[in-house]
């Protein structure tokens, strides 16, 4: 109990917390993101309908406008789409999919990037050469193009039965592949600097195992820029997933993410059903905006040059 109190006090006195209180946009973003995360976690309990369960959809309720317009009906606060799917439920479930895919792809890219970057920087030699050339090749192709190709190829290669259950995992990989390079380059650079310093040599002399040196002594030196990059990449990953789904190479329309919902809505742009496309778009923008604002704040707050 006492240690927890100490931890809280330390946090209260920290510069990070102080800069947070000085920055209304960061506070706004954290509250917004918290609301989005909590509501999408609680989605099954606070929505009138499970949008993935086709049996619960009723064509009688299709194309209803939002509740404040004429013709809107009671449980469907934001209206329904052409299949009678409640938009409010679809948006919360869709956010859940989008957030999960975004988070998992950042975690995957982080673990691959940190591991390979540490190995390349610490050992150098041909391992370093091969890994960094691979990174060069990946960076010489546009991010979105790699993600589209991986997603499309994986869908082509897998049998239909497996594909449906794996779509979200394919997307996680498709987004992680072009983004691990950035982390790898960052850690590699600092591993190369740190490995020749005395404390690392001392650790090596007393026979500390290499992986322990890497994880305990070298990795912590680079966590600050990595944290900022990971936050900003989380926003980018959510955007990429939405873009892929919008283009039709992402989540299918029976398990819609926010991007899929926007793609479906886009088909009815000229039929006067503006709410079907507008509300998922707003939700997507709010999520990415809040993540980017938090990332911007972290970058400024953790940048030693700006202190």
């Amino acid at each position, binding site marked *: 109990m006492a240690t927890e109190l100490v931890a809280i006090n330390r946090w209260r006195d920290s510069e990070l917390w102080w800069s947070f209180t000085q920055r209304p946009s960061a506070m706004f973003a954290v509250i917004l993101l918290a609301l989005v995360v909590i509501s999408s976690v609680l989605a099954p309990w606070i929505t009138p309908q499970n949008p993935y369960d086709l049996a619960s959809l009723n064509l009688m309720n299709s194309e209803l406008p939002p509740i404040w317009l004429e013709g809107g009906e009671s449980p469907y606060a934001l209206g329904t789409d052409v299949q009678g799917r409640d938009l409010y439920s679809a948006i919360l479930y869709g956010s859940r999919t989008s957030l999960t895919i975004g988070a998992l792809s950042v975690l995957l890219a982080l673990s691959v990037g940190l591991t390979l970057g540490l190995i390349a920087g610490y050992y150098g030699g041909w391992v370093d050469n091969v890994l960094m050339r691979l990174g060069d090749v990946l960076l010489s192709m546009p991010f979105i193009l790699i993600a589209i190709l991986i997603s499309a190829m994986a869908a082509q290669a897998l049998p239909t039965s497996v594909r449906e259950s794996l779509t979200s995992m394919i997307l996680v990989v498709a987004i992680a592949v*072009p983004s691990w390079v950035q982390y790898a380059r960052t850690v590699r650079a600092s591993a190369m600097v740190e490995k020749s310093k005395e404390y690392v040599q001392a650790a090596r002399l007393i026979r500390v195992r290499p992986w322990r040196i890497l994880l305990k002594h070298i990795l912590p030196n680079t966590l600050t820029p990595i944290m900022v990059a990971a936050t900003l990449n989380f926003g980018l990953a959510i955007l990429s997933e939405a873009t892929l789904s919008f283009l039709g190479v992402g989540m299918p329309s029976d398990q819609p993410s926010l991007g899929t919902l926007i793609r479906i809505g886009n088909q009815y742009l000229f039929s006067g059903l503006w709410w079907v496309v507008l509300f998922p778009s707003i939700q997507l923008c709010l999520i990415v905006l809040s993540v980017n604002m938090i990332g911007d704040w972290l970058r400024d707050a953790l940048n030693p040059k700006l202190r």
Partner: protein
Amino acid sequence: MLAFLLKRLLNAAFVMLAVALLAFMIFRFFGDPVEMMVNEQATQSDRAELRERLGLNDGLLTQYVRFVGNAVQGDFGISYRNQQDVMVLMAERFPATFELVIVATVLSLLIGIPCGVLTAVYQDRKLADGLQLASIVGVSLPSFVVGILLILVFSVTLGWLPAFGRGDTVDIGWWSSGFFTPSGRAALILPSISLSLFQITLVMRLVRAEMLEVLRSDFIKFARARGLPLSVVHWRHALRNCLMPVITLTGMQIGNLIAFALVTETVFQWPGMGLLFIQAVTFVDIPVMAAYLMLVSFIFVLINTLVDITYAYVDPRLRSDASVKGGVANGH
């Protein structure tokens, strides 16, 4: 300098070979090319003959070398979907994408530079805060959402501008241009705004950062001390010193814009290379996909190499260990 030049060119060639390997593997291992090309009535011997003619029975290395050789000559085979020469298809679509990207680039400079200067100069005023907020909103808005919203407002609700297509085009040789007809120009407006929005914020942020640095330097203080009007100091003396990085960024981003145009082209049904690529993905038309991948990567690598060489030419310090650099902002 010569050694550096060679090294840089070799590096570019290596990257292109790797991209070609990727394109080759996609072509060779995802779906059987023979099955994709023949119709259902084809007999076993027809298929065997086609397989032989395409050289699919040779060793993989031979096939890869032949693939690269053909690609260098601009031969990417025949589209599975409509039996046309892939390079002809690409050449037909290229002007549409190129004009869109050029207009978006010009827009991003025309809007981004003044906004960047303003946010740097009026650092703690409301206007600067507003523009700064607008820039982070600009980064966060997905470009397809921007496109859809623009269509919703200006086409569906107001009915002012067309929502899809290129309008009428004029042929100048093999190049079809939308610049010379009223409907062609009207059709360019919404797609180019939606494509340039991200680029505008990028330019704006860069100009702001550079301006803040330049404004601290001695020659600016001296210019002020000479009693020059502030507007001259800011817009003539300071801004001129920020333009080099802006030009570099703009050049390097052109590859990204071409790639990202595929999203804009999908939203606006703009008949460019990107739309061709997305349709190829839907129909598993692999020769078209491979050609697009190689073409965009080639433009990417070409521009990056040119920029590196130009920089090394201008700044000799970069010649010694220039391979450490590389990988510039690979936006979204």
